[in-house]
């Protein structure tokens, strides 16, 4: 670790109704990876946006390389040597990979943009980073993980002195995360200062040198990673130690009725001959690698994608589900993994989003019963501990994790008996995660049945009563929690058939 390259002192920032940053201090040294942690809505992203000129701070000072600076937009920050990989993907789907990487600083021959040179430069960059992507490919054709790698490559190509990664790993596969860590270690070697935001405790231990913790917009403290435990960090984040044992035994009686039965479901390439049963009060974990076809299976059951063949039985009766409306009528609720695209309407309020799936309970004659809507929404804001100044706040202004809670509230209000949670805790901090776990357990106890798709092994092992493993569109294993272990599941998830 070298000398301090960046200091943020007493940074203060308010949005209407939210004191997002309350005199926060933060510093980065050359050659260190500095983790920034905190619960959803703690203000991590906001702090980094203030640094890179996307938001203007209300007060406080930023010193970069010994000089006080104030950036007015990302461009100025970039030019000074500070770049950010945003939490939300910022790709331009219609342009090629190379065009995305060099956007705003295209190589030119006269007035003509030199795409050939850009492709070559991008290929060189990828080669250096050991990323296998064709620079001439159209961005929207890449997987989310690959798109994220492009964003990372773009940030690195700026020859920056400080790079900020805002939850880069949420969409990456294990292999891609490994690659990312190699890149980060390399950058550290080159004496760059790196800010790493993540909710995954394991990553923090592996890759970072120091940890700064924020809570409710305030600065809590900075620790040296090697000298602290996970619990220390969590303690600082939430002010209490959380501890919950993984399940060791199924809580569902053997003779519990089957509420959902799927037989020989086929839908495109990604769902081939999938059959399974879901019992009342059960949490059925769906494990597998990225792209194993779990989400596709869920979407086909929910009627969001067309099925080629297969039967679905609910409470023993065969049902036709051709679209999400049918599914909702059958009492199925689906929480999408991609909440931005399918889960919420960001320009609507928390209350409107919460009641969206159960509108009919909130209309009186022709009119929407606003006060009832607000009351119910408020109940769920309280019970899920959603951080929002009020139920009339627009969802777009909530932090990532809190948006997820609004989606969960939506289906809970709908009172669905079968809930499909697709990556329910992606991008959610430990505190909120634990609440969601508790909530899922509570729901299961109340007799609801849950399908939980998750890429996090610990989550699968902690929550499931039974686990189904998929690989390349097929079901490759089914195992009771009492017999399950990480090795067995991994084996099934990579099984060739």
């Amino acid at each position, binding site marked *: 670790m070298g000398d301090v390259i960046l200091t943020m002192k007493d940074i203060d920032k308010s949005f209407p109704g939210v004191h997002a940053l309350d005199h926060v201090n933060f510093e980065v040294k050359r050659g260190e990876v500095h983790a920034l942690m905190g619960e959803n809505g703690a203000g991590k992203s906001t702090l980094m946006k203030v640094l890179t000129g996307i938001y203007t701070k209300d007060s406080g000072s930023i010193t970069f390389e010994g000089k006080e600076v104030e950036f007015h937009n990302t461009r100025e920050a970039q030019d000074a040597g500070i770049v950010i990989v945003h939490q939300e993907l*910022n*790709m331009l789907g219609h342009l*090629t990979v190379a065009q995305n990487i060099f*956007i705003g600083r295209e190589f030119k021959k006269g007035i003509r*943009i030199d*795409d*050939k040179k850009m492709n070559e430069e991008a290929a060189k960059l990828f080669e250096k980073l050991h990323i296998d992507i064709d620079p001439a490919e159209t961005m929207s054709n890449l997987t989310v993980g690959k798109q994220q790698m492009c964003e990372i490559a773009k940030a690195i190509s700026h020859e920056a002195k400080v790079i900020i990664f805002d939850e880069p790993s949420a969409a990456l596969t294990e292999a891609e995360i490994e690659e990312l860590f190699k890149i980060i270690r390399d950058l550290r070697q080159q004496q760059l200062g790196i800010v790493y935001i993540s909710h995954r405790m394991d990553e923090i231990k592996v890759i970072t040198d120091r940890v700064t913790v924020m809570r409710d917009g305030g600065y809590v403290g900075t620790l040296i990673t090697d000298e602290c435990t996970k619990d220390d960090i969590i303690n600082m984040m939430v002010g209490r130690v959380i501890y919950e044992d993984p399940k060791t035994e199924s809580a569902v009686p053997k003779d519990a009725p089957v509420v959902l039965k799927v037989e020989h479901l086929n839908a495109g390439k990604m769902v081939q001959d999938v059959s399974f049963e879901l019992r009342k009060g059960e949490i059925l974990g769906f494990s597998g690698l990225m792209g194993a076809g779990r989400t596709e299976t869920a979407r086909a059951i929910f009627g969001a994608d067309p099925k080629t063949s297969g039967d679905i039985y609910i409470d023993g009766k065969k049902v036709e589900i051709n679209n999400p409306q049918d599914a909702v009528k059958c009492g199925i609720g689906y929480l999408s993994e991609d909440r931005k695209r399918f889960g919420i309407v960001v320009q609507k309020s928390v209350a409107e989003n919460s009641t969206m799936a159960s509108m009919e309970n909130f209309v009186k004659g022709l009119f929407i019963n606003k006060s009832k809507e607000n009351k119910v929404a408020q109940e769920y804001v309280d019970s899920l501990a959603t951080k929002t100044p009020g139920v009339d706040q627009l969802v777009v202004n909530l932090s990532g994790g809190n948006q997820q809670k609004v989606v969960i509230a939506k289906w809970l209000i709908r009172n669905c008996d079968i809930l499909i949670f697709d990556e329910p805790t992606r991008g959610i901090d430990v505190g909120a995660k634990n609440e969601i776990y508790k909530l899922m357990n509570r729901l299961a106890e109340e007799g609801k049945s849950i399908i939980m798709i998750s890429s996090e092994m610990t989550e699968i092992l902690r929550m499931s009563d039974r686990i189904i493993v998929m690989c390349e569109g097929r079901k490759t294993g089914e195992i009771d929690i009492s017999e399950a272990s990480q090795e067995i599941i991994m084996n099934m998830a990579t099984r060739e058939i």
Partner: protein
Amino acid sequence: MSKAVVNAPAEKKKSMFSKSGNQKLIVLLVVIFLFIFFSIFSENFRRYTTVLSIMDYSYYIALMAIGVTFPLITGGVDLSIGTGLICYSLAGGYLVVHCGWPTWAGMLVSVLFGVLIGLLNGALVSIMSLPPFLATLCTCMITRGLGSICAKSFGISWPTTGSEGSWFRDIFKITIGDTKYPLGLLWVLLLVMFMAFVLNHTKIGRYTIAIGSNKEATILSGINVKFYHIMAYVISGFFAGLASIAYSAVFSTVQPGTGAGFELEAIGGAIIGGVSASGGAGSVGGSLLGVFVICLLKTGLPYIGLQANWQQIITGMVLIGAVMVDILKKKRAAAV
């Protein structure tokens, strides 16, 4: 890895061809098919004079379509080009006919007027953040009124063939010996090539696509989005200005109060030609081909005994087809 570098450009061509190229090819085939179809079923259609008149009808729509492709790609729209075209033509024509200005000065006024309205549209959309539909609907009404005021509510006839200052009519249809040639087609093609270059190989074009793909992300990339967003509307206005010259040159009299609906033919053509209704994708060449489809239907259908009403219904259906193709393409892309 070094192999990838060599391969990259070649692969790019392939992928370009399979996406926007594919649709262009289909539309080109439709154009050829329609032409042959009408030629088979109507003897009169086969005449050279018919081809000439199709051309006459297509220039101003084609020019509007080239321009409006840019706002469409940003995810917006420009509804002011139709009534705008009439307004610019009337303004320029008034100066030429009633104030004795030379023809070239009148033409210049037409074009500059278009640029000005484009600038206004751009400012409303980009700086005032009005929805493009609304902003350009307002300027559509404004230009309609302005046009009438300019012409004092009378029709205006730019200098007719043979009279002094009528040279500009030859730009579009030149008579050599006894034969008339559709010279305008050449200019339209040259402009299409130039604007295709602008769209694909210059910053203006690149950022137009970027804005249509994801405006927020474009801003975060440190690009002056306001400026480039305005530019898209200025280009549209500029081409509406050029279209007004084509209109003045092809038709003998320009009537105030007309022009509403022209924009729909241009926008429809662009969408048939592959401009995505939700922004981000599109090509100038495709837009031109799309306009030919519309113009062929417009001129061809009466020859096989279907009146104007039918022609509109059929054009509308073709448009639905084009939008469906766009949606299907997006679905397929999402499924990958």
